[in-house]
């Protein structure tokens, strides 16, 4: 699939953190976290990305991935 993919579930699995706990830590609703996880989000705020990186102890590149069309 072409575009930016959000790989939160992979990082979450590595850190062994649940969706509810992550949503609580970064201060967004579980519904919004689900939108992010399912790649339905149209944009992500720097503040959300920063909170995610802090909560998951990772870099933005671990969460976001760009894929080209072949």
């Amino acid at each position: 699939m072409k575009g930016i993919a959000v790989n939160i579930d992979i990082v979450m699995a590595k850190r062994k953190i649940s969706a509810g706990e992550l949503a609580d830590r970064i201060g967004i609703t579980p519904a919004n976290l689900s939108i992010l996880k399912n790649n339905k989000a149209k944009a992500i705020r720097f503040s959300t990305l920063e909170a995610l990186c802090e909560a998951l102890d990772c870099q933005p590149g671990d969460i976001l991935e760009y894929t080209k069309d072949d």
Partner: protein
Amino acid sequence: MWNTDKSLTLSLVCTKIAIVLVFAAAIAFPIALRKGLFGEDGYVTAQMNDHIPLIIAIFIICCLLALIALFSLNRLLANIKNGNVFTEKNVRLLRTISWMCFAVAIATLVAGFATSFFFLVIGALACFFGLILRVVKNVIAAAVQLKDENDYTI
């Protein structure tokens, strides 16, 4: 105190009254025209007398189109009252209303060329309303896109 909710309620009531009036006009106008209740010596009446069946047909078509537009308007207002303003459904309803205006314009222009200048004026007005509604529809469509983007920004 006057507020948006009361304004919407008034618009809904006016729309429902308009629906009843269109129904009443659709029944009363052909009878009145056939019985010559509009007078004997007026310019419009003299022109109309030669084309009564055509005028009645066009009038009934216009009433049907107006009813479709009014029912769409009623649903649109109900949606707005329920808090659903910038939705694809409302864009579709506005598109329907605008097409109904253009259809009325075509019908009355046909009647205008066949009978009286009076119908040409109504046709031009209907066309103008249709154009305004298309612009409003385009604005709402752009707003739907913006709202969608905003809703999916996390």
